[in-house]
């Protein structure tokens, strides 16, 4: 019973993660691995989620795997690059974040990324979509300057449409003003 509950919780957490919230965990787990393995891991995860009635042995293995993934997620190299209000220039504190992503991309040459640009809820929707695009592109340009081919990074803006949090405090606004990197699938 307890195990089933934990399993459900973890599946839920991983499910959310996959949809949107945080960077994928595979990169960390397989940091030095060949790209083919990264892909295999991603496929395996997809397959596991499609299973409707997993046997109990499989559940155990899934729980273990997913625990590792959740733990790995915490130290992901795909951190968010944060921005100042109504600005889209790369801040000093965002440089090491993007440098880490560039380093990882150099090690994993066959993997491409999507950079999402986001804004806080202040300001109007359309202007924020444009601002989000500028942020995503600023991050992409920064990666290009570090030697990452522009063809490996797609950008998309979500403006203020997909906030990480919705409290009306600067701490939350700051979390939402971000360029968020995910793997292209």
């Amino acid at each position, binding site marked *: 019973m307890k195990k089933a509950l934990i399993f459900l919780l973890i599946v839920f957490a991983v499910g959310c993660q996959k949809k949107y919230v945080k960077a994928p965990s595979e990169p960390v787990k397989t940091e030095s691995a060949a790209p083919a393995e990264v892909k295999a891991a991603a496929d395996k995860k997809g397959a596991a989620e499609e299973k409707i009635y997993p046997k109990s042995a499989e559940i155990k293995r899934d729980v273990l795997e997913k625990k590792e993934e959740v733990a790995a997620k915490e130290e992901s190299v795909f951190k968010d690059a944060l921005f100042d209000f109504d600005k889209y220039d790369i801040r000093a504190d965002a440089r090491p974040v993007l440098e880490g992503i560039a380093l990882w991309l150099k090690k994993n040459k066959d993997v491409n990324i999507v950079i999402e640009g986001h804004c806080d809820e202040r*300001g*109007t*929707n359309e202007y924020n979509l*444009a601002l989000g695009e500028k942020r995503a592109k600023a991050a992409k340009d920064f990666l290009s300057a570090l030697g990452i081919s522009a063809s490996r990074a*797609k*950008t*998309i803006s979500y403006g203020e449409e997909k906030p990480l949090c919705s409290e009306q405090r600067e701490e939350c606004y700051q979390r939402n003003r971000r360029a968020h990197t995910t793997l292209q699938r």
Partner: protein
Amino acid sequence: MKEVRSQKSEVRIFLSVFCILYSVFCILTFAYAKVYIDITSPALRKLPVSFIPAGQAEAKEITEIVRNDFDFTGMFSPVDANIPGAEVKISIEAAVSGQKVTASVAVMDLLENTEILKGKYTAEKTSLRLLSHHISNEIFKAITGQNGIFRTRLSYIANISGKKELHLMDWDGHNDRDIGSRGLIVSHNWSSGGDYLTYSSERNKEWGIYLLTLANYKETFLFSSRELNLAGGFSPSGSIVFSSSRDGSPEIYTMNSDGSNVKKLTRSIGIDVSPAFSPDGSQIAFVSDRGGTPQIYLMNSDGSGIRRITFEGNYNTSPSWSPDGKWIAYVGRKEGLNQIFIVNTDTGDAGQLTDKGNNESPSFSPDGMFIALDSDREGAKGIYIIHIKGGWQKRITPKGMRAATPRWSPYLK
């Protein structure tokens, strides 16, 4: 007899029938000679009106909707029929036959003891609200000489437990329905005849521009690129103005309503978004940060003659034209909050319309008397209507419901 049905796909067909039958069968007397309320006057006096239902129970319901319509405008003060003081008396009698309701309406000028309007209106029992709003329009026209906005609607984005849906509702907030939840939808706008909406939608990490035909809710794809593409408004002749970053930076473009004939109008390194055609189609208002901060600019519809029209504050966005093309309502940031302002496009005269909470997404009513907007003044962001002369503001979406970016329809037939 006239027929009023609310079935969405039949609206157009029935309306042409409605209009023809209307002119043939209706006994109507209009007294336009006298204008009882000059709604363009700066010092608006509220006209005292009494409402008297008679006949079957439906009369009460219709009268209540009509009374709310009139009360809602802020131009009339409903007066109890038993208390003297009313200058105009509106009598509504209803008779039900099968599935149909017939309302007999009589409007009297009590000061001169003359009949201003007399008419009969028939509709399906299920379309009482539409019938009532139609009656409101007829009475409003008889009293003010102007077209009423009682059958107009608003499109907006409803946030239903985190899921954002495109909705349509009557101008009084009733008759709300979800009309499209295909992906994330932003920047929706009405065509000038009220037959179409255009909007941008994100699908598979691409922003495309789409056209929705309201008669059958059929969606047509118009434009996409790998970058951000945001729908703007329609011109009276049906062109669509939009912004796209397909050449790297968001610029303003126009295209035909089938997506053909794409023309680039602006070239700047910064952000150019939120374009809107003036009501006569000769000019385009848009937002640009070419001067360092987002401000409202105007240009001719071919992209020439770009000029800035907002100078106060460092964050002015979301331009919306008044129907006469003389004013632009916009969102300006003041003391850390977003407020609605209007600016005269000729003189540059400006005024502030809101001061509580954050207020965004202004959209003029087709008669130019009201502005719809979204506001968080009472907590969750909801849709409000304000009178442009100030003083009078009202929330039309239910309290606590998260709703934003209203767009007011043109007059609907």
